[in-house]
């Protein structure tokens, strides 16, 4: 007879849990810890959006919405995408409102790749991609991004990873954990190469609103790839709405129709009152997004400068809200560095290895934290670095 755990599929069993779970245990028993380990804004959702959700509950908007999401919300998203990123998606058949960008990533991968297929994942990257590829029964092909390229993807690297089995590439700029971005000029050669291949690009642009020098350019805007891009975005980061679980996915209508089946059968629809609030977020809260972006920008400069001053090498991030310092010269592994930083100096940062082996020699710290916290964390890090 099988033991309960043995009923679990191999793909699931063989996928390790997130590498940072052990910090939960290490944290209990410690007090006065400053956490720069979080991947979400420190701001609460703007009041206007919260108020709007309360109102929609008051009005009894508590039923299922259409599977693809409220038409009004789909229209609002498509209008915003057109205005901000020059992307043309039809609200009637080219968008699905999802439970976070997380669901969007999952249904995109499951629609495209299965057993025998390969999905190229540039690393270090957000932890969920590889898991989703594994669960779909497909094979994740890692591509190691390099600091000397400022963690940008190059065509040469991409070409080395493409095989006959390649079904999709996951592109995620602005990037978690590196803070890297890619410009139009840098994306174009990737598009030119892929346009000659039968490869879909899943473009996770959830940090699109959070860039600090140049305005974000969407990969989906490149004409020759538009129909082969699955565009993923959401409300979590721009609007500080992580706990609301709302995102969306846009693509060619024939792709959307297929993804919709998975969404339909697995999810039904995203929460209705959350969708109502999201309409107001899009239509009335642009100023809030900009206010928060400017705060992140000031903190970004502060933490970057602070790290350089205490002798930690770091590349200046241009998007998202993370720094990804290089600690190779300390001689410590990422994990050892972060363990000691936490146990000895009570600052929590995430070892680069949590974002794949390509992250060895780095750690991720978020600057979505108050300036006060950042200042204190830098002081503690300085003390730590001085003991090394």
């Amino acid at each position, binding site marked *: 007879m099988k033991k309960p755990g043995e009923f679990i599929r191999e793909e699931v069993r063989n996928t390790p849990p*997130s590498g*940072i779970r052990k*910090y*939960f245990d290490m*944290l209990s028993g410690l007090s006065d*810890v400053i*956490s720069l*380990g*979080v*991947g*979400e804004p*420190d701001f*609460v959702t703007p009041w206007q959006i919260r108020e709007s959700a309360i109102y929609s509950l008051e009005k009894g908007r508590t039923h299922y919405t259409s599977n693809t999401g409220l038409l009004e919300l789909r229209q609002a998203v498509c209008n915003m995408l057109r205005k901000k990123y020059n992307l043309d998606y039809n609200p009637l058949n080219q968008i699905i409102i999802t439970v976070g960008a997380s669901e969007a990533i999952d249904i995109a991968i499951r629609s495209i790749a299965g057993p025998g297929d390969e999905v190229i994942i540039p690393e270090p990257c957000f*932890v*969920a991609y590889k898991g989703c590829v594994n669960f779909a029964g497909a094979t994740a092909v890692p591509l190691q991004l390099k600091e000397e390229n400022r963690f940008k993807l190059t065509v040469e690297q991409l070409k080395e990873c493409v095989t006959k089995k390649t079904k999709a590439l996951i592109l995620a700029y602005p990037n978690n954990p590196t803070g890297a971005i890619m410009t139009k000029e840098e994306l174009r050669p990737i598009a030119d190469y892929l346009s000659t291949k039968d490869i879909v690009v899943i473009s996770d642009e959830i940090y699109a609103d959070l860039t600090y020098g140049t305005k974000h350019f969407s990969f989906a805007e490149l004409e020759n790839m538009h129909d082969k891009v699955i565009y993923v975005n959401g409300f979590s980061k721009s609007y500080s709405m992580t706990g609301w679980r709302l995102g969306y996915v846009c693509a060619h209508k024939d792709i959307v129709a297929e993804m919709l089946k998975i969404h339909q059968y697995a999810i039904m629809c995203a929460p209705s009152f959350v969708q109502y609030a999201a309409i107001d977020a899009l239509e009335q809260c642009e100023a809030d997004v900009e206010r928060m972006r*400017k*705060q992140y*920008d*000031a*903190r970004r*400069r*502060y933490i970057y*400068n602070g790290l350089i001053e205490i002798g930690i090498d770091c590349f200046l991030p241009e998007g998202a809200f993370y720094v990804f310092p290089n600690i190779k010269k300390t001689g410590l592994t990422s994990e050892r560095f972060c363990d000691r930083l936490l146990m000895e100096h009570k600052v*929590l940062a*995430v070892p680069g290895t949590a974002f794949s082996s390509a992250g060895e020699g780095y750690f991720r710290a978020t600057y979505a934290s108050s*300036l006060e916290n950042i200042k204190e964390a830098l002081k503690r890090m300085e003390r730590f670095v001085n003991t090394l």
Partner: protein
Amino acid sequence: MDILELLKQDARLTPKELAVMTGKSVEEVEKVIKQYERDKVIAGYSAVINWEKARDNIVVAFIEIKVTPERDYGFEEIAKRIYSYEQVKTCYLMSGAFDIAAVVEGSDLKEVALFVAQKLSAIQGVTATSTHFVLKKYKENDLIFEEEEKDRREAIVL
């Protein structure tokens, strides 16, 4: 954020910190601030204090004042006579049902009421006043006076 926005948020930031956060040089920041101070764009620096917490004998009132504008000077001279009193902490020219709003502070109700009756009402050109005592301050200068909500985020996710 620019220098003004940053200082509004925290006036204690040093020129060096401001320089880092705006991408300017320290000299440039110092020069710009000097100029703002000279032009009275930056009118001053002060802490936002919740006096209710610091002491128990403080009374704040919001006074609506109606005035007849003076020939040649309009409201300016009357406003000056009002805001020159040390008890008047804030003073605005208003549109609408009254003309001037003044925030007055004192150590008890009687003191404030007497000040309004004997000083403000007596100013030439002031035709009527209406005093509203402040019972509680919730927010001032962008700052919410209640206990700060703590960071509710999980220390680490995923």
